[in-house]
């Protein structure tokens, strides 16, 4: 089958790629676009290191033909990393020493982002359930769960501060 052109939204920017049929989103991100934060642990859906968000939902980019995301919104770790400093989830991972070799970290952060977007104050159980599809070979997981808890608090505090300053302005 012939190659075709696929366009999608990557972190707020429209990208256009020419692909053979069944090329995965993971391969397009890493090999065609140079977005290598999305990792390549197994290429068969077993490790979670390739997790990206598609329309806000966590998906394994190694199992996703890029044609399936045509016209959709794809978010990778690059998309959420600010130009200066770190996203609150990244900062929480750093503070909790939740990353050793770092290979699982992009996938863990993306799953955590989807969780916190949907549930800003998750229980311990909810965090553990959200992360079941992601393998970490180094940390023993507890530091990662701790990081997600403190990220939730940081996001919460930031929202409070925003509300506070909006209130100031209103007065």
């Amino acid at each position, binding site marked *: 089958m012939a190659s075709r052109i696929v366009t999608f939204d990557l972190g707020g920017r429209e990208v256009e790629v020419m692909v053979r049929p069944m090329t995965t989103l993971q391969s397009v991100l890493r090999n065609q676009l140079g977005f290598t934060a999305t990792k390549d642990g197994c290429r068969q859906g*077993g490790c979670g290191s390739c997790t990206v968000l598609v329309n806000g939902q966590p998906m394994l980019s190694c199992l996703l033909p890029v044609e399936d995301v045509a016209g959709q919104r794809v978010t990778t770790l690059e998309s959420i990393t600010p130009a200066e400093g770190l996203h609150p989830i990244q900062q929480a991972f750093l503070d909790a020493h939740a990353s050793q*070799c770092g290979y699982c970290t992009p996938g863990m952060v993306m799953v955590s982002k989807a969780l916190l977007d949907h549930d800003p104050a998750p229980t311990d159980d909810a965090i*553990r*359930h959200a*992360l079941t599809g992601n393998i970490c070979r*180094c*940390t*023993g*997981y507890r*530091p990662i769960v701790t990081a997600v808890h403190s990220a939730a608090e940081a996001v919460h505090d930031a929202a409070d501060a925003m509300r506070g300053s909006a209130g100031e302005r209103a007065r």
Partner: protein
Amino acid sequence: MARLRGTGMAAVNYPTGMNLGGDPSQALIHATTSGSFVVSLSATDLGQGLKTVIGQIAAETLGVEFGEIVVDTADTDTGPHDMGTFASRATHRVGNAVIAAATEARQALLDVASEELEAAVEDLEIDGHGNLMVKGVPSRSVRVADIAALAQFKYGRTIAGRGSYMKPKSIVDPETGAMDPDSTEAHACTVAEVEVDTETGEVTVLSIRSAYEVGRQVNPALVAGQIEGGAWMGMSHALYETTAPYYPAVDHSPRDFSEYLMPGTLEMPIVESVILEMPSSNGPYGVKGLGEMTANSPIPAIVNAIYHATGVRIDELPVTPEKILRGLDAMAHASS
């Protein structure tokens, strides 16, 4: 059918490094024109944090900030020789080599500073923050970075150092069998608590609590991370991981991550540790190797806890539910 609880204990003495046929690590350090120091190594950072601890050791010895150190590892075509990252040897061997290299580089730096400041080398000190001064005379202070630049552009010199650390080959005494295989030993003891479901044979690890004697800690966060990650790996070896569950038959061998079992976030037990620091006599700043030992004592501690809970003594890893149920059956038959 019941859920039975048990507690098990195990201890480990773990050697730092091997003597092989002589086991060297080498390091080279040089200052750049901007005053940062490049540490060149052939040892690899596998994710355990070697670059971090080597940066700390180099900064400490040179007297500059950690951020001024660039650790360049693992091109064995161009780097100084290293036997490699294994046997929990890297922090110990490479750290010692880096101290030697940094000491020589520091001397070269002080030699240039002595000319520039017109003061004897013995009268100079570096404050740990990249300032070099005549002792007790803060007004006669210069930045290490400025001396590094002057060395290259005014004095035409290099600020560099070479370091090597070698564990010599140890021959086994044919009469007694005695030899000196390692450099030092770290120690740990682990207590594990488990719950065993006698209907399904499934084991839940409730807690893994350990005491570790690891020599001087260069980086306590990395030490804690290795211990916690190692507890998980030990639990994983004890209960889940195998490439041949019916060895030597290859039946049911896992082919990928979805079949190769490991504990995930839902299986995490409580992991707690205390750390004792008893510096070694020959490690850099008293370091001992810690990496691999952390996956050791949790394994027999868990297997002993299963024995304590059920009376089933298992001597082959991993302890699958099938092995526990077969053990319980055998016990029931023996008693009837």
